[in-house]
């Protein structure tokens, strides 16, 4: 469904993403992990069109989308969320999600109905009339997902939607992501919460200094020496074992 071919993104002398090749099949849930500054979000920016790679191609459903504008890529069915959530602060939750729905549902009336359905899926119904700005971070993360879902993506990129959540919120988010996955949505998930990642992903890719240093099933990745050195540390392996 998504194929990255030797994608490189540089900022001046810094290579944020170096020759990353990666494939994601339809219906898959791919996890991406790596230390801070490894290039995970930059990779999302490149996939979603926010940044143009210096080298390499991004193909979505066989189509070369490298260098397309973010809105064009979204309309093709590839939507991303932002690590630092970007709610439309002065608008209600319902209006936020309606704006997402309007991308595929042109009528405002129908889009509002559609948005209510998505809000329900994400468990935001009690907050539908609340101003997005007034929500606590846990709910704003969920709004970020709801708004992206409303654009009816076939591939959804989630950038640390579990960071900063309390245990209850985390469980809810894991359940939501799992449910979306089970319903057939293809997902790429960036996450630091390893426990959640181990449970959700069938395959994990590890970025370090912009390079893809490992990919495979969670257990295999967690046992990989380079991954342990670069990211996980000894302790985690012991805890998991």
């Amino acid at each position, binding site marked *: 469904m998504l194929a990255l071919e030797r994608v490189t993104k540089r900022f001046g002398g810094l290579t944020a993403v170096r020759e990353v090749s990666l494939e994601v099949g339809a219906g898959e849930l791919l996890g991406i992990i790596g230390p801070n500054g490894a290039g995970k979000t930059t990779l999302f920016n490149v996939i979603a069109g*926010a940044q143009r790679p210096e080298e390499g191609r991004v193909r979505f459903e066989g189509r070369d989308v490298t260098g397309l504008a973010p*809105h064009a890529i979204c309309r093709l069915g590839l939507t991303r969320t*932002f690590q630092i959530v*970007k709610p439309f602060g002065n*608008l209600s939750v319902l*209006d936020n999600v309606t*704006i997402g729905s309007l991308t595929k549902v042109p009528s405002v009336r129908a889009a509002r109905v559609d948005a209510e359905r998505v809000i329900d899926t994400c468990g935001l119904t009690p907050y539908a*009339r609340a101003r997005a700005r007034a929500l606590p971070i846990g709910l704003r993360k969920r709004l970020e997902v709801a708004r992206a879902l409303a654009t009816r993506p076939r591939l959804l990129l989630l950038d640390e939607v579990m960071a900063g959540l309390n245990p209850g919120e985390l469980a809810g988010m894991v359940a939501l992501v799992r449910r979306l996955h089970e319903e057939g949505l293809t997902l790429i998930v960036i996450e630091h919460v390893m426990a959640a990642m181990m449970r959700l992903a069938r395959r994990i890719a590890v970025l370090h200094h912009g390079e893809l240093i490992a990919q495979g099933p969670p257990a295999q990745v967690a046992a990989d020496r380079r991954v342990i050195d670069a990211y996980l540390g000894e302790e985690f392996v012991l805890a998991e074992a």
Partner: protein
Amino acid sequence: MRLRLPRRRGALAFFLAAAVAPLVVRDQFFLDGLILVLLWGALSSAWNVAAGYGGQVSLGHAAFFGIGAYAAALLSARFGQSPWLGMLLGVLLSIGAGLIIGYLSNRLRGPYFALSTIAFSQVLLIVASRWRGFTAGSEGIPVPFRPGFATLGLSHAAWAYLALGVAVLYFAVQVVLERSRLGYQLAGVREDEDAAEALGIASRRLKVLAIAVSAALTSICGTLWAQYVGFVDPFYVFSVDLSVRFALMSIIGGIGTALGPFLGSVLITSLETYLRATFSGMKTGFAGIYLVIYGAMLVLVVRFLPEGLVGLAARLRTRVTGPPATAAP
């Protein structure tokens, strides 16, 4: 999107009062005030379309006002054409100017965008004030008065209804925009451009469109104003003061609401009329007092009434009747 019903009732009362007033009061001074309140309200609404709904806060909208004023004035003074034709020409030129400024400043956000719009209006000021052979330069041009609707030589009462028609039309444009797909998407761009773009909204195209529409609406009122007042002075019609005024009325009345610009206009226009009547006889020391008062009002509104008079009305109503039931879609 919120509190729609009560707000519309206020609008109905406002426009009805404006419609009945000329039937009851025949006083020229009052009618003049009414016409100006409606025209300025419409102008601020035009600004509001781009700035309030789309977040493209321009401080150069006088450019479009001036284009509208000059197009009609020059066409009738130099070529003897109908000001309606001049209005059309002004609209076309303003849309063109709006597209150019929208395209050029597309990547600029917030204050940088506002600065670029100021620069644009100043360029037009220089052109209009230096091109003596055609625009009569800094002397300005008088608009010939020829009685009749085709030439916009109208009585005060007729002007009042023409201004009312324009005001209602602009109000309706805002209401329709608010409820439309375009309005939602513009609100998204206003709130967070990157997020809007990631959700499939072609933000740049939308911004340019909003500016072009806003420019056209501003230009129409520029023409009407020049025909009503009868004189076009480049240093007035292209002034930053004027641009600030469009913004100020919307901000004080309630930015991003359909009625806000009109409420702001009632306050600012009547205040200005009052100040002019009170202080005009005094020496120059008081000539700039309106600037002090505008500034103070702006500070107070931004600090205590960030949603303007419309927000204040909603707040008072909530206090009296309790929180509003869920807003109608």
